[in-house]
C-alpha cells in the first residue's frame, strides 16, 4: 500500500508536493482530491482510484501562474517555500468552494498548514487579495 504522496513524487515525478511530517500535522503534502483538500501522506494510493487529483503543478495554466500563485509572489507570502505548495492547495480548495471568504474562513482553511517563516499575515493578505478581486479570480484564468 503506497502513499499517494510517494506515487506523486517518485512515480509521477511531481515533486511540487512536499513532505514535512508524514503524520497529517503540517499540510506540506496537501493536494486536492475531487475538490477537497487532503493530506497526501495519509492517503493510500488505492483510495484515489477513479478520482481527480490536483497538485500544485496543476494550478498554472499554459505556463501562466494562477492568480493565487501570482498573489503569493506579489505579497511575499513565500519565504523558504516548503509550506507554499500545500498553502496554495488549501487556499485553492477554499476559493473553489467559497469565492469570497471572510478572514476567519481563510484562517480556518489554512489551519492545517504550518508555516515556520512568514508569520501567516502575508499569506492571509495574498489569499484575501485574490478573493477581493485585486488579483484575477482562479476561475477566470481556468
Amino acid at each position, binding site marked *: *500500500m*503506497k*502513499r499517494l504522496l*510517494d506515487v506523486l*513524487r*517518485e512515480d509521477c515525478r511531481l515533486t511540487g508536493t512536499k513532505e514535512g511530517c*508524514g*503524520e*497529517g*500535522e503540517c*499540510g506540506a503534502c*496537501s493536494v486536492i482530491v475531487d475538490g*477537497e*483538500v*487532503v*493530506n497526501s*501522506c*495519509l*492517503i*493510500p494510493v*488505492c*483510495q484515489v*482510484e477513479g478520482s481527480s487529483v490536483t497538485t500544485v503543478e496543476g494550478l498554472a495554466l499554459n505556463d501562466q501562474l494562477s492568480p493565487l500563485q501570482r498573489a503569493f509572489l506579489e505579497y511575499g507570502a513565500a519565504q523558504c517555500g516548503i509550506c507554499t505548495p500545500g498553502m496554495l492547495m*488549501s487556499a485553492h*480548495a477554499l476559493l473553489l468552494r467559497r469565492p469570497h471568504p471572510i478572514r476567519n474562513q481563510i484562517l*480556518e*482553511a489554512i*489551519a*492545517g*498548514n504550518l508555516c515556520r517563516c512568514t508569520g501567516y499575515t502575508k499569506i492571509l493578505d495574498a489569499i484575501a487579495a485574490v478573493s477581493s478581486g485585486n488579483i484575477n479570480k482562479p476561475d477566470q484564468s481556468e
Partner: protein
Amino acid sequence: MIRLQHNVVHRPRTIDDACTLLAEYGPSAQLLAGGTDIMVLLNAGLLQADVFIDLWPLDELRGIDDLPDSLRIGALTTFSQILRSPAVERFAPALAAAARTIGAAQIQNRGTIGGNIANASPAADSLPVLSCLDADIELASVRSRRRVSIHSFHTGYRKTALAADEMIVAVHLPKTRTDERIEFYKVGTRRAQAISKVVLGARMQIAGGIVEHIALAYGSVAPTVVRARAAEAILLGQYPSPELASRAVAALDRDLKPITDLRSSAAYRRRVAGNLLERFLRKALQH
C-alpha cells in the same frame, strides 16, 4: 520515501461483501476508512497488517438519513459532510460543533465518524457528544445486525465491544428537542490540529424550573469517554442555583479519573472539567 510493506488490500463494494471478508480473515484483517489514524501508525511503522479491507469505496456506508425521531449517520460519513449537513445543524448541532474542531480541513475531509468511534481514543472528540445524546451504534457481521448503546460500546482503554468479524455501519442519534440545551466544549493547546485535554458534551432540559434531564459526558479525563453520573444525580430534579452548581462540580471528583500525560496534568484537567461544567450551567440557565 516510506515503503509500506506489501500487503493485500480488498475493496468490497457492499456491506455484505465486507462482512464476508471480515468473517474470512477475522482479527488478521485491518479495516481502513479515511485512514487518518491508520496511516499515521503505518507511516511510523507502528502497525503491521497483511490484509486490509478498504471501506472507502463503500457508498452504502455514507450519508445522513433524517428519520422521524433520529438521525442515522453512516459510518463512512466524514466530519466535513457532518458539519455541512443541514439535518445535523438542526437536530444535533453539538455534533457539528465537535466536527468543526477535529484536526483541520484536510482531516475533516477524510476522517470518518465510524473511524473516530472504532479507534476508541479517550480523546476522540465525537464521543462525548454521542454519549450525552445517548446514541446507538449499529454493527454488522455475517451473523447479525445489532445495535449497541454508546455507553456499553467502549469497554476500556482503546477497547470496544466489536467482535473480530464485526464492523460499524452507522450511528443513530435521537433528535434533540428544541427546549433542550446542548453544548460541546473542547480545550486543547490551540484551535486547530490539537488533541483534546478536556472535552465536555452536555445536555440539559429544564421543566417547571427544575432540571428534568441532564447528561454530562467528558472526554480525555478517563480511559474512555465517561458520563459524570454523580454530578448528574446532584442536578437531577433540583432547582438550579449557584450553590447546586458548586456541589455538582465537587461531585466530579467521583466521576473523573484524569491522568497526567504529555498534553496536560491531572490537576489541570480536573480544574478545567469543573470550569466547563460551571460555564455550561451558567449559560443553560440564562435561557
